[in-house]
């Protein structure tokens, strides 16, 4: 599973992209977040400190924490967008 991080989420974790193989019981974006937090304490900390400020996308579309995921998915975590 491809995981990408953007903006200050990436700055905190220090990784922009990684390929991970979460256990079979990690079937949602929310569960993946928790599991990734174990690999990256800074990510766990960000989620705890700013739970509303970490957004996610699956396969290039916005997705909430209940969205189900599979090993071939492309998942991304980032702050609320500030373009325009």
């Amino acid at each position: 599973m491809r995981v990408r991080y953007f903006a200050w989420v990436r700055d905190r974790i220090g990784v922009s992209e990684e390929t991970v193989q979460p256990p079979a019981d990690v079937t949602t974006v929310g569960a993946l977040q928790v599991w990734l937090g174990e690999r990256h304490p800074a990510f766990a900390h960000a989620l705890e400190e700013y739970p509303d400020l970490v957004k996610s996308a699956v396969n290039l579309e916005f997705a909430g924490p209940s969205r189900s995921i599979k090993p071939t998915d492309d998942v991304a975590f980032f702050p609320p967008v500030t373009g325009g």
Partner: protein
Amino acid sequence: MIRVQGEPFDAGREIGAFFEGRTDVGGIATFIGLVRGHQSGTNVAAMTLEHFPGMTERALEAIEAEARRRWQLSDVLVIHRYGRMLPGEPIVLVATASAHRASALDACAFLIDWLKTKAPFWKREETAEGERWVEARASDDEAAARWD
């Protein structure tokens, strides 16, 4: 049409080309977003726009499609830059063409409001105190929500 690019663009020239030769259109509405030289009392020396390649184009195309569903538009143009830019430079251009002005004006406002909250761009400012990520604003969420 959607263009996501690192290079600067000439907003006036793009607008001129957008309506050049059109005789089917009564109104063109445009919005240009510029880098401001100060923000909340702090001088901003430069701004860097990060984006999510692939998702950005897809999100902007979905927003354009939604605008075309809601209004009768002859044409739509969205140009959005990424990378580092200086105060006064255009970040984004939205242009709409319609037979009737209300459609052009409303669709233009809709496009920039949705783009602000639904396209994966992130701004980082360079100030005398260092760099900082720009925080999302509740007013942008409210502006987008009025189109729900």
